[in-house]
């Protein structure tokens, strides 16, 4: 709709307020990570300061790279397994006909919705029996509890949008059932696969609850490193904002990259979007 000048001014003023609310904490975090301790601890907040990289330097000197590796390994491998099995199962779910399919679908989605604190409890005991505490493998398995049902559901939503006639046509041409999936359906859902992979990566990269319970000295991830800065000798806001920037920046970038498909992904396909 077109608007008069007064309405326009009001609309953009409201938008400015919303943007302030959203962006100020993030901008403040990034700015603070470049402030010297003196500027950081000034009781009057200031936008003007001489930038320094000392907090980032200190983080990498104190072994941040190890945490980055643990995070990348745990989140990356869990994502690869979830997306691979999720593609197969999502396709299967969208094309198969068998009795009780609704119940299977409900069961899959209900595992995704289980409260994290309630999932952690039995997993903790089972991991203790299996010797999986303080191991990256344990974290990968823990992340699969939410990534796998999620990947199945979104891939199901993306495959359900493809008309089955495409694969049928390929089979008439002589392709086998699996070739029809592999050569026709799978490439057509490439945007869905990328979206699924990125969201699985974001969920597991951002996880704190599982990592704080299951990880030990050998498997701690970046969010754990961040929270530890807060409890050791006082509160090191410089390093904390620096590590915050390191954790957050890559996820915002990849998240915005799949913005077009986010609605479908985050609603498990329940809202189709544009």
């Amino acid at each position, binding site marked *: 709709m077109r608007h008069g000048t007064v309405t326009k001014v009001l609309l953009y003023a409201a938008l400015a307020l919303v943007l302030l609310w959203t962006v100020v904490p993030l901008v403040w*975090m990034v700015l603070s990570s470049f402030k010297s301790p003196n500027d950081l601890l000034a009781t009057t907040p200031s936008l003007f300061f001489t930038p320094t990289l000392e907090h980032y330097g200190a983080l990498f000197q104190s072994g941040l790279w190890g945490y980055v590796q643990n995070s990348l390994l745990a989140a990356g491998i869990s994502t690869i397994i979830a997306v691979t099995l999720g593609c197969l199962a999502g396709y299967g779910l969208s094309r198969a006909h068998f009795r009780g399919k609704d119940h299977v679908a*409900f069961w899959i989605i209900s*595992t995704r919705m*289980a409260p*994290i604190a309630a999932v952690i409890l039995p997993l903790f005991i089972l991991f203790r029996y299996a010797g999986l505490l303080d191991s990256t493998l344990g974290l990968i398995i823990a992340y699969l509890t939410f990534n796998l049902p999620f990947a199945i559901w979104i891939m199901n939503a993306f495959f359900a949008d493809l008309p089955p006639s495409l694969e049928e046509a390929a089979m008439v041409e002589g392709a086998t059932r699996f070739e029809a999936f592999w050569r026709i359906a799978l490439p057509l859902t490439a945007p869905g696969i990328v979206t699924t992979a990125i969201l699985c990566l974001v969920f597991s990269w951002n996880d704190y609850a599982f990592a704080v319970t299951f990880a030990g000295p050998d498997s701690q991830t970046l969010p754990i490193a961040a929270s530890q800065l807060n409890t050791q000798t006082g509160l090191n806001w410089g390093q904390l904002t620096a590590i*915050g920037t390191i954790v957050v920046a890559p*996820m915002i970038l990849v998240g915005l990259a799949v913005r077009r498909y986010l609605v479908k992904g*985050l609603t498990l396909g329940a809202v189709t979007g544009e």
Partner: protein
Amino acid sequence: MASNTTEKGGGRRGISLETKMLLPALVLLAVLSLFPFVYIIFMSFNTVSLIGGISFEWTGMENWTRLFTDSVVLGSWARSAIYFIATVGIEMVLGVGIALLLNEIIAGRYAALSLILMPMFVAPVIVGLLGRFLTDSTYGLYAYFLNATGLYTQDILGTPGSALLAVILMDVWEWTPLITLIVLAGLSSVPVSVLEAANIDGANYWQRLRHMVWPSIAGVVIVALLIRSMDAIRYFDIIFVTTNGGPGNATKIIPIRLYETAFRFFDLGYAAAIGLGMLAFSIIVANLFMRILKNRGLAK
């Protein structure tokens, strides 16, 4: 058909390929979910001890009777309900409002949307830690402004009422964008020509909103509400790193209580019973979600 085993319906001649493709994921998911599920039920009837390996002592309904009579845990349920209604409620109102606002904005809509979406990708633990930084009574930006304007001069996370409000607002900051995104997608399905016709006929903005826009986005708004409800009971990271349930019990919602019962007091059997209570709630929401999917013809 080229192959004689690819008939629709699979059926008589063994399992179809489509069903086989489901199997690896389902087997893994069963190991990851059914096994722990049965295990947590078993735990809830026992006193579980971690000292010297793991030992179980069958105590029957003891944990369960405790669950319904323990005033401390009942208090946590009540606080959870307040936290849940406040976060989800504020997020719905703000999210729908911001979506309607963006829908009216032509120049810069997509740039603004990108900025608005950013909080969703921030790790909740960072939201919590950043929240602590901003509300720190000595160095915090937000605390400084509240103090300077005289709006609030006490320690934000150290005072029960403002601590609860602060953690609620942190959750609102992170998840309002999700509602905005979903509702905005719903708004794009409202036919523009009908709106313009109504405009020419003299319908004002509120009339159009009530009679034309709202009916076409109501379904999407309910989906957004359910998605957010499921996650609101799942997550606890923000509170875990900001107040850890304090001051006193002011922010001790039920997931925090469960975690503390299990991993601070090591009362694992009782924690299992609390966890099953939470699970019951999320299954109810999941059921509603599936029913709405079906009514909208989305789950086949």
